[in-house]
């Protein structure tokens, strides 16, 4: 103990350091909250719902399971080719579309249909994405913004159709219209790059070119389109209809 009037405060240096450290840490921790205010006042970005989409359109597909042959994978092959997917079926390979073989156990009746992102009007994947990378365009196409996707895979957990894949390894030779990358999540884009050029998704084209005609693509909001006329005429269903997600992909024969 010193003999001065003022007791030496050995903890002064430590307290000072702690004070500065705490202030710095508080700043870092509070940054997200401050940023909130900025974002709330910011203009919508490029990945907003209206970029690229035509007004008033709702793209959809009608798949007739009755015309779908068990073992036929023309739609899958076309999708893989168009989007630069490997076509592999390891548990870590991306599959944007797959054929599901369904069997009714008691009667043995079998049927087959392709399953892909259903482009729901109320997509659970969009709800759960923390950064908004999973988003729905104004024309109903549900996409992943590969610039904001942090690869948390919450959308893969949330999708009722197991429609999303996670890219598990480095990629090379991606198609210029189809951005893909390691560590992000992806799924059927309804060939948005083709649709925006006025064409149809690759799976639809392949199926009709091969003469099966199981998939019809079109604007569900246009009463004159073929898909709308068929949906109005035949009893179409949605997979997991009870979830009330209002999917863009409908099926006949399920």
């Amino acid at each position, binding site marked *: 103990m010193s003999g001065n009037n003022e007791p030496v405060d*050995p*903890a002064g240096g*430590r307290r000072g350091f702690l004070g500065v450290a*705490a202030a710095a*840490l*508080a700043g870092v*921790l509070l*940054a*997200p*909250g401050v*940023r*909130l205010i900025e*974002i709330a006042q910011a203009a919508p970005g490029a990945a907003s719902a209206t970029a690229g989409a035509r007004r008033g359109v709702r793209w959809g597909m009608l798949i007739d399971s009755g015309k779908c042959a068990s073992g036929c994978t023309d739609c*899958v092959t076309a999708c893989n080719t168009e989007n630069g997917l490997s076509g592999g*079926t390891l*548990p*870590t*390979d*991306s*599959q944007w579309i*797959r*054929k*599901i*073989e*369904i*069997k009714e156990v008691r009667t043995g009746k079998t049927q087959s249909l392709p*399953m892909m992102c259903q482009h729901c009007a109320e997509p*659970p994947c*969009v*709800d*759960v*994405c*923390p*950064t*908004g990378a999973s988003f729905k365009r104004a024309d109903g196409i549900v996409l992943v913004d590969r610039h*904001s*996707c*942090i*690869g*948390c*895979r*919450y959308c893969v*957990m*949330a*999708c*009722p*159709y*197991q429609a999303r894949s*996670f*890219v*598990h*390894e480095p990629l090379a030779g991606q198609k210029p219209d189809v951005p893909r990358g*390691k*560590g*992000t*999540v992806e799924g059927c884009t309804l060939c948005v790059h083709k649709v925006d050029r006025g064409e149809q998704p690759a799976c639809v084209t392949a199926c009709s070119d091969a003469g099966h005609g199981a998939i019809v693509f079109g604007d569900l909001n246009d009463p004159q389109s073929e898909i709308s006329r068929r949906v109005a005429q035949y009893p179409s269903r949605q*997979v*997991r209809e009870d*979830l009330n997600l209002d999917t863009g992909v409908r099926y006949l024969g*399920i």
Partner: protein
Amino acid sequence: MMAIALRPLEGRTGGYYLLLAALAGVILLGLGAVWRMEHYGHIVTGMTNQVVWGLPHVFAVFLVVAASGALNIASIASVFGQTAYKPLAPLSGLLAIALLVGGLCVLMLDLGRPDRLIVAMTHYNFKSIFAWNVILYTGFMGLVIAYLWTMLERRMNRFTPMAGMAAFLWRVALTTGTGSIFGFLVARQAFDSALLAPMFIVLSLAYGQAVFLLVLVGAARWCGRPVGPGLLQRLARLQVIFVAATFYFAVVYHLTNLYFTKHHDFERFILLDGGIYTALFWLGQVLVGMLLPLALLLHPATRHKVRSIMLSSALVILGALAQMYVTIIGGQAFPLVLFPGRQVSSSFRDGMVNAYLPSIPEWLLGLCGVAIAGLIVLVALRFLGFLPERLDDAAMDAPPAAPAHRE
């Protein structure tokens, strides 16, 4: 009136630095695993497109849930007026922060794009509970740091009840948010239940108390300030209530699921023929995590022994990891049901139970989170005052003045 001083640990520095080095080693190994995952992609792990959340998430969710529960004792002291626990409140707050940091590190390092963390902190979709959790977790750390400051800085002591209440309410919101990560998933049979949020609150009570007990008794014994039997019994009795509550929630969860015919297949999978998941549920979650700890804490032959209480805490933690594994991974292993009542097959493993085996990088990453939490606790205990100078009953029972911080 006896003032309980908080003093840094001293003595036996050899063993201390050895433990510190061991933890640092585990952290380095974990970071090495992260580098490998980041470089080669998640293909080096056991995770697949069907089981996208693996062992790292098991550890991370456990750490985060335990973190909010570790604040129990501080909340009991500051919010619920049990002043006897006040000297333990700073340690409780420290543990909460350390466990949360450990859990968050694992979560962030397991991302497909951990380099995009700044995107996660600046782009928010507020319909996502994940986005809310970013704010809840970082805010919790800030709040608990402020709470600790009010406890350790004598001039701020009068703000402790307010800070304590804020931290307590925030912690309830945080744990609700964590449970809701799963509870909000309508797609999967394991999760779509409002029960998960309150269940996680109850789990946090038990897990946090177990970690707190282990750290408190362990640290106290190490530096020769053993915890008095009276205090130990009070903490053990709390643990009995918490573990019993987790048991209750497990019963309600499964009984309700068993009532729904559409969930029968899933329940059969977990309870009967799920292989590793069934084993982990009955042996890990129920036996090791709930029944054995309760037996140890209640049986007259064991309930007063310090070793039994420590063992029960360790068992609760092991059972917690088993429960997280069954919940998170079992919930993914069981296939999504797209066509109820029908047999399905596809190239994407529809209709199949999905195989998953944790890989070494995942173990290393998970343990890295635990080591980070341990390192923070060790450093704080050694160089700052978080452990009361005296933990014997005579000192703890006397109505204490505000805990003094002595260097």
